[in-house]
């Protein structure tokens, strides 16, 4: 069966892809059009219930909820892209190096990875915020740093498996160097593992960015973000409880989509890797 047909028949991959497409389409749409200007304050029309002009109503400053949600998707995607980019860039390089060199280089890099695990994104974000002040960059860098050991470990483990294969031995017997083998054999063979992990870490990054923005350590006003919308909604929880629903739903659906897609990809790209079911 072709990959495309298998993908269409894989239920969680199909559902996940639809949700992820929706997220990407929303972000793309935000660049062209929103029902209202997302940052436009209109106090006389504050806390409106859903109506024909404001489909999900307005917040405590009269801003249109739908527009805020649409523009907020950009933040989520930016957080995911940058945090996964940092993790992939530094982590994969470290993992490949550890697997190719072994010995003390391996030991040193893996101890460093273990060490970085002691600093969850929140701790790094707290330290960076205390010195540099809050912002999307601060929070996303903190999440990215925590991604580095995640990718380093998974890369090393997968790369060691490739290094033990016969065709690598053959390649070495032909006089190919570690550098060539890493690029020509190891990287292509571990790509599927990395793609799956990148999808999952993208979801983790969206969750973490939302949490940091909720705490005031991430995206700053007036830039719309789902996490901060929830923070503002909580202050209005007795007057306008509906405001606390939508941003959370947007976060949960995005994360669910990415996780389902990641699980599906794992099955589709490498049946041997698929978890017990």
């Amino acid at each position: 069966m072709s990959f495309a047909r298998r993908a269409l028949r894989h239920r969680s991959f199909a559902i996940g892809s639809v949700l992820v497409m929706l997220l990407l389409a929303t972000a793309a749409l935000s660049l062209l059009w929103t029902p209202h200007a997302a940052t436009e304050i209109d106090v006389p029309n504050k806390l409106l219930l859903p109506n024909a002009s404001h489909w999900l109503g307005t917040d405590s400053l009269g801003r249109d909820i739908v527009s805020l949600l649409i523009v907020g998707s950009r933040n989520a995607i930016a957080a995911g892209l940058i945090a996964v980019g940092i993790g992939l860039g530094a982590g994969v390089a470290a993992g490949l190096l550890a697997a190719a060199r072994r010995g003390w280089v391996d030991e040193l890099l893996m101890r460093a990875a273990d060490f970085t695990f002691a600093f969850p994104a929140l701790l790094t974000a707290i330290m960076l915020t205390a010195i540099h002040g809050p912002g999307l960059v601060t929070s996303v860098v903190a999440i990215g740093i925590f991604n580095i050991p995640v990718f380093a470990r998974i890369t090393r483990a997968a790369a060691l498996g490739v290094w033990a294969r016969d065709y690598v031995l053959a390649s070495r017997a032909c006089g190919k160097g570690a550098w060539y083998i890493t690029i020509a054999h190891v990287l292509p063979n571990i790509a599927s593992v990395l793609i799956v992990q990148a999808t999952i870490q993208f979801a983790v990054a969206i969750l973490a960015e939302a949490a940091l923005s909720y705490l005031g350590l991430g995206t700053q006003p007036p830039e719309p973000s789902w996490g901060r919308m929830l923070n503002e909604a909580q202050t209005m929880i007795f007057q306008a409880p509906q405001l606390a629903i939508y941003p959370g739903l947007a976060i949960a659906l995005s994360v669910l989509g990415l996780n389902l897609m990641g699980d599906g990809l794992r099955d589709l790209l490498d049946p041997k890797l698929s978890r017990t079911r």
Partner: protein
Amino acid sequence: MPGSVISLFLLKRFAAFIATLLAASLVIFAVLALLPGTVVEVMLGETASPEAVVALTHKLGLDQPAWQRYLHWVGGLLSGDMGMSVAYDTPVRELIAERLAVTVPLALMAMALTTLLALGFGLYAASRHNQLGDVGVMAASQLGIAVPSFWLAILLILLFSVKLHWFSAGGFPGWDEGIAQGLKALVLPTVALAVVQAAILARITRSAVLEVLREDFVRTARARGLSRRAVLWRHVLRNAMIPVLTVMGLQFASLLTGTVVVEKVFTLPGVGLLVFQAIANRDIVVVQNVVMLMAATVIAINFIVDLLYVAIDPRLKAGAA
């Protein structure tokens, strides 16, 4: 199995544990305290008079060389002296101790509820493998993983505080008001934390149990006439605990993070709220010590998990040689 091999393994692990703690203290010191100008500028703002800068620099001991300040800080940590909070003018140790009385019970209750939910649902799903119950638990856990704990916390407030008026929407009466009142204030935060954590752990438990169920020794035990239930408790669970424990150790960091976030949602006066107030007050000394405390807790938990492996898995005892 000679005991000396195990003690050598434990000694090595302990040395690594201490080295990691030292490295963490160096990184935190480098980020937060090494730039003397920055700390004072951050605390006083850019408009501070030169005299005020000099006075604060001296008060914080920032006019001393960096290595001396580092040794002073670490030496203080070892003797339980974390310095003075600039904003509160109180010893940092007292501030943290006061806040731990909220954070530690919350984290422990959340961990206990997480374990209970995860083992229960994980075992149930594994025993109903590929049946309706299994599919239902897995679908629910997929949702649980996607829901941010702070959003779940807000939803719980919406339902149980705003609509039903069963719990207050936040705040903490203090343990002086009676244990029952204190615990009641921690119920919703505990649930918000545990549901999200348990969703991940239940999946791990399920796949670990399914994995062990396929092992030869399980079939042998069944062939020896042991009942399904006896095999499950005596053989399967113990072996399945190894991956479950690994993930629990890894999850502890996210539990700690989650606790900080959930404290903010429910305005619980724990360590998390302390650190946010400290950031707002530009109280770097408090930030530095709280971050160190949290990093040290994560490192210590990972060390304990390593020790537990040895206790649970006899094969690792042999492998330690």
